[in-house]
């Protein structure tokens, strides 16, 4: 895995956003984009830079589903579980994909290859069931299609 982020690296990221109105979410997103998760060491530094308490920053991080405390697998598969996808059989599809990979929701395969996350609507409700793999969208997903896409991953 990547080495621990240094205070200098974190300071650099903070510096890019401090001029914004409401800089905290952009900072958290940038940190997660850079390191793959939100390093615990960054929290006091963020708090200091924004004049907030550590508890406040931690509270914000825990409120949002997107932020992770540990790195995900090399690939992230988001399967939609919302109503339109359910109407096209997303529940059964998700069950099969999860058992195929041998993980539960939020789980990562033992080889560290794929993390599976639930998502509630990708705006692809007219091409359900929908999924997003590393930011790329897939529609009208079937077990066969999903298997093919997943097998192609490194």
């Amino acid at each position, binding site marked *: 895995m990547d080495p621990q982020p240094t205070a200098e690296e974190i300071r650099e990221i903070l510096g890019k956003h401090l001029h914004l109105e409401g800089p905290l979410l952009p900072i958290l997103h940038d940190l997660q984009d850079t390191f793959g998760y939100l390093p615990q060491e960054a929290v006091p530094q963020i708090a200091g830079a924004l004049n907030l308490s550590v508890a406040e920053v931690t509270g914000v991080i825990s409120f949002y589903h997107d932020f992770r405390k540990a790195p995900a697998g090399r690939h992230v598969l988001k399967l939609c579980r919302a109503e*339109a996808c359910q109407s096209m059989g997303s529940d059964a599809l998700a069950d099969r994909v999860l058992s195929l990979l041998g993980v539960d929701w939020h789980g990562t395969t033992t080889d560290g290859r794929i993390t599976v996350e639930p998502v509630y*609507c990708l*705006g692809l*409700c007219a091409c359900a069931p929908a999924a997003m793999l590393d930011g*790329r969208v897939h529609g009208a997903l079937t077990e066969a299609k999903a298997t093919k896409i997943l097998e192609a991953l490194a």
Partner: protein
Amino acid sequence: MKIYVSRDSAAKAFGADEVAEALQEEIVARGLRAEVIRTGSRGMVWLEPLVEIDAGRGRMAYGPVSAEEVPALLDGNIDSLGLTEEIPFFARQTRLTFARCGLTDPLSLADYEAHGGLAGLRRALELSAEAIVDEVKTSGLRGRGGAGFPTGIKWDTVRMAHADQKYIVCNADEGDSGTFADRMIMEGDPFTLIEGMVIAGLGTGATRGYVYTRSEYPDAIEVMEEAVQIARAAGVLGPDVLGSGRAFDMEIRMGAGAYVCGEETSLLNSLEGKRGVVRAKPPLPALEGFLGRPTVVNNVISLATVPVIFEKGAAFYAEFGLGRSKGTIPIQIAGNVAHGGLFETAFGMPLGTLVNDIGGGTASGRPVKAVQIGGPLGAYFGQEKFDTPFGYEDFDVQGGLIGHAGLVVFDDSADMMKMARFAMEFCAVESCGKCTPCRIGAVRGVETLDRIAAGDGAAVELLTDLCETMKDGSLCALGGFTPYPVLSALETFPEEFAGTREAAE
């Protein structure tokens, strides 16, 4: 020859990028004089990837086309669907907000202007702030985010407020299942949203704007960010909007996966970098919004409709529609439906026409059982309510809501108790935690539905009581409206809640 392929996410989800690439390769290999142009989506999702070929006699449609079929397509061996705009699903629409979507290159400002873009803004620049707000009032435009509040009245409150800084915040959080109109306009015609925000700024005295959108929409974010840069470079945004001496600039911000952040006060907290907890009203965001300053919070479609109102006139817009639901509404037809996509029409079309005639019934070919209208907080309507005209008041009278105008169709295999349970579960997961009836009530709701599923028929009454408590004691519509899908499923399909079923596996 010009060849058009959509770059909308829904088209990409079906392989439009691969199709465009294959076209490009074939053009080179065959030495054709042809250009591939990536557009937004025409909204006929079941035909994606839709390829349109214009060889001088209009845009002929082909779809769905796979990358493998591209050589055959160029050989003339694939049947055309005819002119795109003559396909019945398209021909039956009234496209005002979505007039350019699918037609133009979303990131070409020249294309935008050639198709009526910026005409509204130029007109607004000649008007006083009061006259701008009056125009919006006259148009009858109501908020498309769900609550249907008159946009002009909201703007007027901000216009009359005194402050050193005011804001326009565009709500692009679009979390409702079955909806994608915001995403489509951001990916397919981003300048219309930018233009609408600038006009809102002129009308209210706000000089700064934010688009708050969801992290689930990376493609929309990319297009919006590029569009803002292009608009800034061209002087549409910045300290001197189109040389008028008036200032307006804006930024794109990304949420972090919280449904409740679509609620306007939660959104403002999130934008400020706080937990997305709902604020009590008053104070109204119009008076104390972002960073405590007067703020317009409007949905993407509300703002993106403003340019056409100014281009064609408020009276023109107000002529469409039904009663107090004026103008057009982009209806998103989704779920288990044969012809899914975006259908913009004047308010008033009956629900059944939308589902059966426009949507073509279910994708599975089985009978339609129910339609959920308005996202996870919207009611389920069975066939007996299919005469309901699509309008704010008409749906209200029938115990439903139109919300952001998404329809999710279910066939007869749908398990309505499971859908009711999902509504409660979703509320429990997404609750901001501020009020007990929502935070705890939703968890109890899941438990109660499990008891009913296990055969305890008496728990039905408990469920009804619980829903009443949630309706009465919730601060916002997440807790307050979750009873809509639950109770409508119960009332429409009572036999499924009879408590006689075996426990679900």
